């Protein structure tokens, strides 16, 4: 299989940068909220490609929104919001929510399991399921509240930006499906250019506060947004100024050795817990032999 631009840039719980790093084009996903029709092709394209099981009996959400929130089997969620603006104009915003693929990923900083979270040189932050220990530190470390624990497997999952497809030279499944070009895929440089052009168009069309969402608090993201009201990201369910928490920075900085001790303690704790209480559900083939 051809692999394109999947040199590793950073690995969770590793002490040094990954060696042999080559230059690779940084990829990104652009979400132009002004073009989203909430069709949900992205939601199911993701699930179908990743063979994630559907939640047929999910609760009624009170709106067109599929799920109340992201879930271990639901990595892309369009949030529907009815907003009555001051001038009496109704807006029905549809905002896709998923992993932001931060340049400075809080999840990766927080993760104590070696190789469970990987950041590729192209910017994709990927969870390697085999290495995940289910401690959930990534969940608390994420400034966007994205990773979700599968209680059945005890592992955490999230959008991979279809690293398997990107590695083979394809675009992510959600982006390919999107009918209105609300989603685009390409190098971050190019997409920023397009994003700013769309912002200019929006300004001409009566959205003076239109802007690009690429929050600096996490070093910028590889998922960027065009927002018609960029002054109010919270209207779209996006945090106004997300940051990697200072504790994580400290931990992975001057106090790294201490961090690793704590992490090791965490692993030991999980190990002991596991041996004592066992898995959530054992398979026949394992218990029988």
């Amino acid at each position, binding site marked *: *299989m051809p*692999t394109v631009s*999947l040199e*590793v840039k950073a*690995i969770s*719980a*590793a*002490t*040094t940068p*990954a*060696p*042999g790093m080559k230059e690779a084009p940084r990829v990104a996903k652009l979400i132009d909220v002004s073009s989203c029709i909430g*069709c*949900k*092709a992205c*939601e*199911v*394209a993701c699930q*179908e*490609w990743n*063979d994630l099981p559907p939640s047929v009996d999910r609760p009624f959400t009170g709106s067109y929104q599929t799920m109340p929130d992201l879930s271990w089997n639901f990595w892309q969620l369009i949030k529907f919001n009815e907003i009555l603006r001051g001038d009496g104009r109704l807006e029905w915003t549809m905002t896709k929510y998923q992993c932001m693929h931060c340049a400075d990923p809080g999840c990766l900083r927080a993760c104590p*399991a*070696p*190789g469970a979270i*990987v950041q*590729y040189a192209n910017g994709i932050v*990927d969870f*390697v*399921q*085999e*290495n995940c*220990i*289910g401690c959930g530190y990534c969940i608390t470390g994420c400034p966007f509240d994205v990773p979700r624990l599968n209680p*059945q*497997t*005890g*592992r955490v999952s999230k959008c991979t930006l279809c*690293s*398997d*497809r990107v*590695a*083979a030279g*394809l675009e992510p*499944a959600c982006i*390919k*499906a999107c*009918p209105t070009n609300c989603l685009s895929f390409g190098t971050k440089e190019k997409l920023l250019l397009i994003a700013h052009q769309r912002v200019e168009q929006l300004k001409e069309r009566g959205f003076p506060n239109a802007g690009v969402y690429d929050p600096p608090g996490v070093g910028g993201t590889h998922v960027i947004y065009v927002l018609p009201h960029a002054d109010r990201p919270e209207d779209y369910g996006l945090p106004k100024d997300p940051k990697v928490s200072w504790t994580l920075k400290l931990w992975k900085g001057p106090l790294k*050795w201490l961090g*690793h001790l704590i*992490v*090791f303690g965490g*692993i030991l704790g999980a*190990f002991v817990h*596991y041996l004592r209480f*066992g*898995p959530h*559900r*054992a*398979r026949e083939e*394992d218990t029988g032999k």
Partner: protein
Amino acid sequence: MELTRRSFLKLGLQLGASGALVKALGFDVRPALAQTRALKIERTTETRSICPYCSVSCSVIIHTLGDKAHNVTGTTVVHVEGDPDSPINRGTLCPKGITLKQNIVNDLRLTKVLYRAPGSDKWEEKSWDWAIDRIARLIKDTRDRHLIEQDHKGRVVHALTAIGVIGGCTDTNENNYLLTKAFRAGLGVIPLEQQSRI
């Protein structure tokens, strides 16, 4: 994959053997070369088709297992994706098109001829030959009983209005044409309709 006691222990062993646990402590700098998941459509057979739902007619690529070699039989659909060549959809699809696999591979699909006898409250499985014979008999008997040869003014019409035929809005042009040819031009059926009015 679910995490089980055995695989958990295995994981621990692997971590130990690969030195990853050591690495976690900051003593080892062995690089972890990430291995992404294998591409699930890497060697599938691609067939060009058209989405059967709305009237936009997006082109889709159906990925099936096997390479259509002589001994390949009874395969299944692995994935359906938009065809980037189509000027209409250029690879994009809606939430219905992108999940077409479930329209093809679905345990609710009908695979047997089913029959419900008069007054019955259940289906019975039947053979095709039985069903074709029985339905043909019913068509002929109804036609022989009810074919209108002349209208109230004595004009020849040879029209059959005791049988209705509907269908075709998601079937091919060729099958629509065959329906009108066999049932109207052949058997004289007048009530022949599809979805267009409703």
